[in-house]
């Protein structure tokens, strides 16, 4: 059975998309549509957990040679782009050169791609024949296959890109299961099953089963919730603020919704939040009270981390819809260690004792001073949003409990990013969402040479860096996991980060939705879904 035009899936986005040109986007919403329209060489098995790479338009997984520096793939012949005037009526086959072109676009400064960093390691792209793509990397990278499975690595056709010039964001043409049928920017995105999509069978069913997907942009939670309850939408991904309305305390659907046949799929997002300390001795020429590797500095950072109430963060700010992060790699990502026992518990009593021991004396006002008697004030940076104000309050209360004076520094998001890249923030809470399901994507956040980019703490540890460089040369497995554990312990010993939480994703499904299983990496499941009549 081919796609049934009567089966239209209705979903919502809680924020507007930026566009659908794979090189120009970085938001989840645009990525979801890009995933439906474009085909990367590799993808993930829909049902396998943890996520497992499988070929998509490639005939097989890449042949990795040259010690992890050369990737060779064969594109499956007979795959065609969706019809478009740019092809001038000619049926256009997908070839290896399309992938080479698509990857080169990330390096083109004109495109100012937010994901250029993923392809920064590409040294050369070769297409020895029509269907063969050879990617040569500058350095060994055993995770590059994951990059080839990202939604943004889908192939675009040069003719289309050249034909639409600056308008490529609104003219996506790919080889994927859906085509863009109607587009009202920031309001409605209608996808239709692509009539030229290849013969793709899964569990005996030709994909896609859906005739189309209608996406409505609804920023307000109340609108999304009411629309779902009225049956105007089929899947609701983003209702964590009102989760207690439809969920019990133990994470199950309330009986009244169960009776209506509504389904709940609960999973943990492939992300962590963490609060980093700037590890540099000085910030902008001024002494940094939390920076450096002396014992008293480590004691201060550790005491701060031990005083912060992560459980309150989850209960109050996350409304119970998160779990405490105990490892830098979240669950569901290769390298995660569920057995790891963190060495920084919530323990304000010990935190106070630690500060007393290292000479942070309390003054008359109850606040501590530095061991040399100078005033101690820790500056925490956040944006002027309601959510961040909640974080400010929790940090203030936590640090008051150990007599450490907290100053809140407010600035706009881009300015904080700028200061962070310049190592000029003392403390800030950040989040990292997996770009691909491998621990390397998280462990690189503390790698010294990434200072000024993703290493927000500006942490430089020869021990950590040596292990990280070694881990990059190892495939996922026990040996690499051992290194990750050691690196995590080093991070804790130096107390560079205070790990926060990983949020739950609660997906609500109407009874007619069939075949849904939340994938830890794929943005959407539309390709595999069916709607009961």
């Amino acid at each position, binding site marked *: 059975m081919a796609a049934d035009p009567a089966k239209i899936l209705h979903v919502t986005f809680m924020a507007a998309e930026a566009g659908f040109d794979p090189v120009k986007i970085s938001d989840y919403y645009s990525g979801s549509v890009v995933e439906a329209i474009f085909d990367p060489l590799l993808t993930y098995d829909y049902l396998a957990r943890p996520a497992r790479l499988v070929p998509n338009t490639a005939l097989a997984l890449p042949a990795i040679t040259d010690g992890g520096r050369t990737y060779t793939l064969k594109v499956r012949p007979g795959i065609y782009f969706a019809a478009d005037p740019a092809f001038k009526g000619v049926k256009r086959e997908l070839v290896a050169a399309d992938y080479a072109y698509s990857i080169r676009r990330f390096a083109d400064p004109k495109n100012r791609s937010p994901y250029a*960093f993923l392809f920064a390691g590409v040294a050369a792209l070769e297409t020895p024949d029509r269907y063969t793509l050879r990617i040569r990397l500058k350095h060994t990278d055993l995770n590059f296959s994951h990059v080839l499975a990202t939604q943004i690595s889908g192939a675009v056709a040069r003719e289309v890109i050249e034909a639409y010039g600056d308008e490529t964001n609104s003219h996506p043409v790919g080889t994927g299961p859906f085509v863009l049928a109607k587009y009202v920017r920031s309001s409605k995105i209608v996808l239709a099953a692509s009539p030229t999509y290849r013969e793709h069978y899964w569990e005996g069913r030709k994909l896609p089963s859906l005739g189309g997907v209608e996406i409505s942009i609804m920023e307000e939670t109340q609108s999304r919730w009411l629309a779902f309850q009225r049956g*105007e939408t089929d899947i609701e991904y983003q209702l964590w603020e009102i989760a207690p309305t439809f969920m019990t305390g133990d994470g199950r659907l309330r009986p009244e919704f169960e009776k209506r046949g509504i389904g709940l799929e609960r999973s943990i997002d492939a992300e962590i939040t963490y609060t980093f300390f700037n590890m540099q001795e000085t910030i902008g020429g001024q002494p940094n009270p939390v920076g450096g590797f002396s014992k008293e500095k480590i004691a201060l950072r550790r005491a701060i981390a031990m005083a912060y109430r992560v459980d309150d963060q989850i209960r109050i700010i996350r409304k119970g819809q998160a779990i405490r992060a105990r490892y830098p790699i979240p669950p569901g990502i290769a390298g995660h260690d569920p057995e790891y026992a963190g060495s920084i518990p919530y323990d304000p009593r010990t935190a106070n004792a630690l500060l007393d021991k290292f000479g942070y004396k309390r003054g008359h006002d109850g606040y501590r001073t530095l061991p040399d008697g100078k005033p101690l004030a820790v500056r925490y940076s956040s944006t002027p949003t309601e959510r961040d104000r909640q974080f400010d309050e929790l940090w203030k209360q936590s640090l008051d409990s150990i007599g450490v004076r907290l100053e809140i520094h407010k600035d706009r998001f881009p300015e904080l990013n*700028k200061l962070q890249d310049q190592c000029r923030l003392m403390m800030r809470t950040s989040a990292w969402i997996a770009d691909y399901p491998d621990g390397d994507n998280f462990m690189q956040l503390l790698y010294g040479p990434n200072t000024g980019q993703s290493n927000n703490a500006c942490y430089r540890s020869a021990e950590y860096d040596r292990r990280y460089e070694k881990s990059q040369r190892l495939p996922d497995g026990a040996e690499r996991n051992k290194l990750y554990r050691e690196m995590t312990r080093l991070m804790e010993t130096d107390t560079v980060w205070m790990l926060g939480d990983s949020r739950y994703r609660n997906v609500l499904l109407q009874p007619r939705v069939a075949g849904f299983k939340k994938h830890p990496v794929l943005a959407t499941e539309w390709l595999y879904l069916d709607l009961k009549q």
Partner: protein
Amino acid sequence: MLAYLIRRLWQFVPTLLGVVLLVFILFNWIGGDPAYLLAGKIANPEQIANIRRQLGVDQPYYVQLWLFIEQIATGDFGASWATNEKVSAIFATRLGPSLTVLVPLLLISTLVSMGAAMLAAYKRAAWPDRAIMIGCTLGQSVSILVYIIVFQYVLAYQLGWFPVQGWGSSLAENLFRYSALPVIVGVMVSLAPDTRLYRSFFLDEINQDYVRTARAKGMSEPRVMWIHVLRNAAIPIVTNVMMQLPGLLAGAFLIERFFSIPGIGREVILAVERSDFPVIKAVTVYVAIATMVVNLAADLLYKAIDPRVQLK
């Protein structure tokens, strides 16, 4: 008349320059560096520098300001930094949905509030006046958010009289199906302050000598109210109505967000969230120009309503 028109148009220039300067200073002061917003999760200094160069924010301030003035003169604000969409296209596509809601909203709200205000003024201190004023006080005490949330929940979700949200592709569908509830909410919000304001306009007129004279001459009450009082009270009412329109275009973002209407207000909020300066610049300039034009139109309308008005 022509001299007046030319003088007023000439006055647009310094006003607009003031707006331009204010927007420019505010954006550069509080807007943040957009390169860090657009650069993605990991960017090196070269990428940041490249983005700054492409956006033109690496130029000296006076060059950026001059480019801004050039954009106003040519009417071409370039493309959105966030989506690459032409700013002119953003306005062309968002104006229709905004007007589909705002025109009926303004029309209904004005007619209803004028009727209520006239009744209250005519029955001053009697029970209709008191009832209307109590209603206005209550109405004004309620936040627009409460109106939206309650009306959406009761009228759309519980009773199913309207769709919870949405926007279609035909004008009729949008006007009669999707705009109905947003218009009701908008009318509810503006009814109370407008009625109070218009009541005071009517009361001013009712106490004028010409009304007493008309009554003394035996003119019927409906004629006194509808012909004489209404005509004279119309000048400040017209001013109020026209002055509301430009602000409403950009200011109706709450209604547009809750009801998923792809209008200008929603786009403005999106632009602010994304530090999308080309869109912010264009909105501010367009609203400033619209306000000035509407001001001028209102002045010209005075003359049409009341020939005694002298345009100087």
